[in-house]
């Protein structure tokens, strides 16, 4: 059951250290490098895009997993941090993506520990089946904070 699909973006130089990005799914952004890397403040950057790609993909996969695991999701918020390593030869890589999701679910009449265990399994599956998380070579660390509300 191996299949392929393709996705695309287009970038165009706008002068200086700026560019214009057109996403395959529609939106367009101005972008630059981060200001600590000779870029411009206030616009999209590749570093943010990388972290955002993983963060958004894991969230979308979690939403799907929450449905499949029959969770009554109340809220989901996740700050994700990417750690950059500058090597001795001055090459750079993002070695680690640290996810800190805050998840609230309703117990829905089930014991809280049972629901919490299911949230954790859904989160593990979300990471496993996330296209982007599954594609990157950065170490992925997930520290969830899960609240099961008796409602």
């Amino acid at each position: 059951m191996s299949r392929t699909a393709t996705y695309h973006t287009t970038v165009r130089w706008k002068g200086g250290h700026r560019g214009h990005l057109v996403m395959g799914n529609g939106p367009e952004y101005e972008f630059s490098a981060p200001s600590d890397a000779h870029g411009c403040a206030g616009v999209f950057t590749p570093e943010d895009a990388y972290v955002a790609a993983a963060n958004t993909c894991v969230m979308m996969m979690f939403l799907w997993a929450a449905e499949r695991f029959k969770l009554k999701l109340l809220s989901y918020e996740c700050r994700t941090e990417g750690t950059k390593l500058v090597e001795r030869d001055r090459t750079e890589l993002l070695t680690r993506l640290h996810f800190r999701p805050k998840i609230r679910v309703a117990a829905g009449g089930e014991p809280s520990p049972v629901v919490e265990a299911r949230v954790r399994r859904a989160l593990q599956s979300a990471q496993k089946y996330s296209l982007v998380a599954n594609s990157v070579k950065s170490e992925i660390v997930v520290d969830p904070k899960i609240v099961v509300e008796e409602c």
Partner: protein
Amino acid sequence: MPEFLEATIDKFIFRVAADRRYSRDGVWVQECGGDGQVRLGASDYVQQRSGDAAFVHVKPAGTRLASGDEFAEMETIKATVGLVSPVAGEIVEVNKDLDLSPENVNQDPYGKGWMAVVQAAELRDCPDFRAAGHQPKVGRGLSPSDRARLLDPAAYLSAVRAQAEEEIGAS
């Protein structure tokens, strides 16, 4: 701990426990105890293809099955998969641990991931078997027709390899 046969296809390793038989659909059947009881579960190939299990619903004890009846359903993160019993009989025990730990089907498909014990009807009810003076013994849970229909581990491994390679070729 059973011994395993393995097929490596692409980046995937599929294991086949050597101490039981298999339907073509990947339901394993292991004789357990005396008097024609068999244990059923899903093969490693089936669990890998199905995805992480969210819920495993096994029909309750007392359910009578004809060969070909669905005895369990796995709801995974990707799909809902029905599992068909290759033997006729009556479910006499269900793995209740799967209610809270359905991941056992993925993590230990040939051990903790077992699903049901079935009192195989054919052996218990087979007049010829009784008339011939045979007494059910440990390891004698499958009737001759069951045995003929089910694949031995090597044959099932070949079937897995063929199916997986066909899928790769079709992609």
